[in-house]
């Protein structure tokens, strides 16, 4: 049931490819509450990315529903919290969900500052000066104020990912989705990105994080989901998942990743 501070309710979410031959998501039901740091773990190909990408409709689900802020965003029209039928504007909902990708996906033809201000200016119609001022504050927070004029190609992987995070934050999202944000980084840069994410979590940001960093999952996550074959096989607190795993697949998975 949806609790009062529930932000996203996912019900029986399905995503099929090749006419159902591939079931990337095979009926996922999960509740994301405000302030949650939900960590999604599971073997490769289990549907973690597909789940995350479905949340902001980068993938169009084959079935099921995603109720975000009281509106089912998978339908062209839906009832809002007051029960009125409204046209669902996907772009509007995406603004409320920041997303950080494994490969950063900064815009290479723009400076760091322009990367950050593009969406606020074009989507939110924020005055340029205001957007830039805000961007500089955010860049300062992640220690990259002096690189505002640089191009992405001139930054290290860790720096790029920190920019990608604050670029999403500039839109003031209600939830941040991270898809393996440290998997493409050299080991010595993983820490600096995880630190930014920890800080965000402590500030109370709602986060859904797909990661192989089990240390982060234990320390920062308040809920952990274990997926395999497009299904949600077990969920619980980090203590439940890591110290008292029930499902056999989970036990097997943990024995491989926790060396």
């Amino acid at each position, binding site marked *: 049931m949806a609790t009062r501070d529930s932000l996203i309710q996912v019900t029986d979410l*399905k995503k*099929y490819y090749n*006419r*159902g031959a591939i079931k990337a998501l095979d009926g996922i039901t999960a509740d994301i509450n405000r302030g949650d740091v939900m960590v999604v773990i599971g073997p490769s190909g289990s549907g973690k990315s597909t789940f995350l*990408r479905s949340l*902001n409709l*980068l993938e*169009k*689900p*084959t*079935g099921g*529903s995603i109720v975000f802020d009281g509106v089912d965003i*998978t*339908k*062209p029209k839906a009832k809002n919290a007051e029960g009125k039928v409204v046209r669902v504007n996907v*772009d*509007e909902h*995406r*603004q409320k*969900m*920041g*997303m950080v*990708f494994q*490969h950063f*996906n*900064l*815009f*290479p*033809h723009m400076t760091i500052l322009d990367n950050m201000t*593009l*969406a606020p200016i*074009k*989507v939110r119609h924020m005055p340029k000066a205001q957007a830039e001022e805000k961007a500089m504050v955010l860049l300062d927070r992640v220690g990259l104020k002096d690189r505002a004029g640089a191009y992405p*190609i*001139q930054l290290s992987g860790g720096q790029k990912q920190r920019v*990608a995070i604050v*670029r*999403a934050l500039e*839109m003031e999202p209600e939830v941040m*989705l991270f898809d393996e944000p440290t998997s493409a980084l050299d080991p010595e840069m993983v820490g600096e990105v995880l630190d930014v994410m920890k800080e965000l979590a402590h500030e109370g940001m709602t986060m859904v994080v797909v990661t192989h960093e089990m240390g982060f999952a234990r320390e920062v996550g308040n809920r952990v989901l274990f997926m395999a074959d497009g299904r949600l096989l077990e969920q619980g607190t980090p203590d439940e998942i890591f110290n008292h795993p029930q499902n056999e697949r989970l036990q097997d998975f943990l024995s491989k990743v926790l060396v």
Partner: protein
Amino acid sequence: MGNLISAANFAKVAQYADLFKQGMAVTIMLSLLTVLFGFFLALLLAVMRLSHLCPFGFLGLTKDGHLREQGFLFHLSRFNPVSFIATVYVEVFRATPMLVQLWLVYFLLFDKSVIDLPKVTILGFIRLERFIPGVVALALNSGAYLSEIIRAGIQSIDGGQTEAARSLGLTQGQNMRYVVLPQAIKNTLPAIANEFVTIIKESAITYTIGVQDIMSAVNATKGALYIIIEPLLVATLMYFCLTFPTSKIIAYFERRMSRGDKR
């Protein structure tokens, strides 16, 4: 029989030097305008072909809101008329001779006054009522070819760029305009410049509808002097002087640009 090629004949052709100079100017302007208009047409066609407009998209949903996977309604829901029209256009223009297109455009649209052009001559030698149909026909053809280049350029941009843009709330149109197209066009600039070189050569056929380009100067000299080889050689040299350095300059910038990317 005299020599096949004679210096005396070149001297005669030299009397018509002004005609050749004007022809060269016309060829250059014709090609520049063609690539300019062709480029915008190509942008439009490429974006049309890659658009996601599916007016019957709602037919792809079942009553309970699931996506259909097969059947007639599934295919109808995927039908994109805008993309279809652009595809037909590109395929037709690429599959038919340029000369046929040129004549069709000229005789269908302009000769019978469907579109009435003023009989104005600018700069003293460019007759607009011939020049404009020439540009239109060449641009319609060039747009079809360029759109394939731009389409490939757009498709070569990593899908992650679009995902990042959309996740920030940019619409599909804003994503194209601010994120994808600037990168795609930068990558295809050398190919677009090469199209300019191609058009310089192909534009020679426009003399058949009375555009006074380099070939038309050849034709005029032939009519006046009853010689053909020498004027043709002059034209050959002129076309070569236009295209060869241009290709070399493009290749130079292409090398420099790709070096910049690897910084």
